């Protein structure tokens, strides 16, 4: 963008005109020590917990420890220029970040400053990063789905709008891949996405941004970045920043989806800050309030009712509920879900998607462990057709898991058991799905229908995916109306059932795969 010089001076002139020369009244303190981004300040007797403090050179900090004679604060950003004896001012404000539509399609840091070289963010609205979650009266139960576009998840572990569903697994099990697919699948649904990257490599973040751009999914997404090279304080506040940006959409009666990638690293950052502030360490050296760290964040993901939306928008939006769905990610070490932070977050969330590295390595991707994964509220939100057809899948897989150990004695087994094992093998195969190729409800319904009604039983196990893709392209070209109808209503009527059945029957007779 080229700026006209006169425009600039006009702008400055206007600013000077409107500048009111007020007397500043503030509380001041002196820096006593600076250690690893933690500053001890003498004075500042009026400082509030969580208040933004102004250091010299325009750097800001946050007061975290209020003691009798000193204040412990974290510096948000670089602290190299702060030295002993510097003055610190109270701002009288809790840390705030910009919010609004203008942030969509942008990459920002934990304070809401753009870092994508696309210019300033055109918004005037700000909101504090720490807010209390909506109360019980303001809430509404979860009954609408968020389609993640993954067969295995949407069929067996459905996520509803306003739900908190944990994605948990070891490193390299495809946790982020699920999150990115979920964002891509929200294209055109009106659900705004926020991806919060905490403690990740800048290169992986650049990859995520590029993939979202390639799939045309950046326009409805805000990316909040606190990379591994940024200070622990920024990594610790980044999820709250993202949550505040998501709440903006929730509070005006829209739906939003937020992904925290990942909360383990945030807990590490908070542990670092706490230990440097000399708070007493507890289990695994985490401070005593590490549970509250995550519970207060995840409580803010919720669905609020139309009355609350009307109240929050001052009557501008009527009859619409708002929601913020959260997909926190937790990385486990060696599959150990009984470590401190994983157990905490499992107990806070409304269910978890459990990813396993041995499934991943044996080629089952997404590597969802259907037995350990649950969704505690999503069932009520599932699309009717997927609910109907997905139930069978879950059962098939559960039975298969019990019998899988006997699979190698296939010839000695009775007819019934053998059939169950074969069905299980095919359903397991069918649950595989490529990255960056989310499916619509209708596509999923057709695949699940084929499995449920035994159309796959005659297909060889290693041909199941070929069969599926051939069937999908056939349905896409020959039965557009039926598919559109399913996508529009989500109902499972006898018309639709017979429609799908006859379509698959014709396909089986006339096509090869």
């Amino acid at each position, binding site marked *: 963008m080229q700026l006209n010089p006169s425009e600039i001076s006009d702008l*400055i002139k206007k*600013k*000077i005109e409107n*500048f009111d*020369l*007020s*007397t*500043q*009244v*503030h*509380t*001041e*303190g*002196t820096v*006593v020590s600076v250690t690893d981004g933690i500053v*001890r300040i*003498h*004075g*500042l*007797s*009026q400082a509030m917990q969580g208040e933004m403090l102004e250091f010299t050179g*325009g750097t800001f900090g946050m007061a975290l420890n209020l*003691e*009798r*004679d*000193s204040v412990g604060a974290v510096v948000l950003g670089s602290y190299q220029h702060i030295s002993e004896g510097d003055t610190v*001012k109270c701002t009288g404000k809790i840390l705030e970040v910009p919010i609004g539509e203008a942030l969509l399609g942008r990459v920002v840091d934990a304070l809401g400053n753009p870092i994508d070289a696309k210019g300033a963010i055109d918004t005037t609205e700000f909101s504090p990063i720490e807010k209390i979650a909506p109360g019980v009266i303001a809430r509404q139960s979860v009954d609408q789905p968020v389609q993640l576009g993954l067969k295995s998840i949407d069929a067996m572990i459905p996520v509803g709008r306003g739900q908190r569903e944990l994605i948990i697994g070891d490193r390299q099990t495809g946790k982020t891949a699920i999150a990115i697919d979920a964002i891509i699948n929200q294209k055109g649904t009106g659900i705004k996405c926020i991806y919060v990257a905490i403690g990740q490599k800048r290169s992986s973040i650049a990859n995520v941004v590029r993939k979202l751009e390639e799939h045309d999914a950046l326009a409805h997404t805000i990316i909040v970045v606190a990379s591994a090279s940024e200070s622990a304080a920024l990594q610790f506040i980044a999820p709250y920043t993202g949550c505040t940006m998501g709440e903006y959409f929730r509070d005006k009666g829209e739906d939003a989806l937020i992904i925290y990638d990942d909360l383990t690293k945030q807990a590490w950052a908070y542990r670092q800050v706490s230990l440097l502030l000399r708070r007493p360490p507890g289990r695994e050296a985490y401070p005593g309030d590490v549970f509250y760290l995550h519970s207060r964040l995840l409580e803010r993901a919720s669905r609020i009712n139309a009355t609350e939306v009307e109240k929050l928008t001052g009557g501008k939006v009527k009859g619409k509920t708002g929601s913020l769905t959260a997909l926190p990610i937790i990385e486990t070490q060696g599959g150990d879900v009984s470590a401190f932070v994983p157990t905490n977050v499992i107990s806070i969330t409304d269910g978890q998607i459990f990813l396993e590295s041995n499934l991943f390595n044996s080629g089952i991707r997404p590597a969802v462990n259907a037995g350990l994964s649950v969704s505690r509220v999503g069932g009520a939100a599932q699309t009717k057709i997927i609910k109907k057809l997905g139930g069978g899948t879950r059962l098939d897989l559960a039975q298969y898991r019990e019998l899988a150990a006997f699979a190698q004695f296939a010839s000695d087994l009775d007819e019934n058991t053998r059939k169950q094992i074969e069905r299980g093998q095919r359903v397991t195969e069918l649950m595989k799905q490529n990255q960056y190729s989310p499916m619509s409800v209708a596509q999923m319904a057709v695949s699940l229908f084929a499995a449920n009604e035994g159309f796959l039983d005659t297909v060889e196990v290693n041909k199941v995916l070929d069969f599926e893709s051939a069937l999908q392209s056939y349905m896409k070209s020959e039965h557009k109306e039926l598919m559109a109808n399913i996508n529009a209503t989500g109902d499972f009527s006898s018309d639709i059932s017979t429609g799908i059945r006859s379509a698959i029957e014709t396909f089986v007779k006339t096509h090869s795969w």
Partner: protein
Amino acid sequence: MSELATLARPYAVAVFKRAKETDSAKTWSKNLAFVASVFSNKSISDLIDNPKIGKSALSTVLLDISEGQIDQEGQNFLKILIENNRLSLVPAITQLFETYKAEDEGSIEIDVTTAFAFTDETKKKFSSTLKKVFGKKVNMKVAVDSALIGGVLVRAGDQVIDASVRGQLQQLAQRL
């Protein structure tokens, strides 16, 4: 600094309470000021830091120096400090004691920095205005600093009222 204040507080509170009881705040004020001035002497502070000199020797030296300058209670206080190895706290104790005293008297220490020296009349006016603002008796210390360009900077403890041209320019710079 803040750690020193924490350690000095019990001593300062004890001294202040004793001074209130015996109504001798002024004497204590003098005592503490004298001790603090003694410690600001380089050779004395070297002596205190010297590990070779025992507590009793140190006590004799210090009591000899302060003979006639501080009263009996002051000497006792000095002995306690020597016994507890807390001689380094004296400046902090003095400062805290003065704050408590000022608070008790309902007065407040205010540092005023101006760009140009006050005339007597404006000083009086300014002082009475400050009295209204803070609701307390005002002990005003005035300093001149031409770096302010114009206006005044008032500092009362942590609180700062910046009505200087420099402060306004800084605000403007931030806005732009």
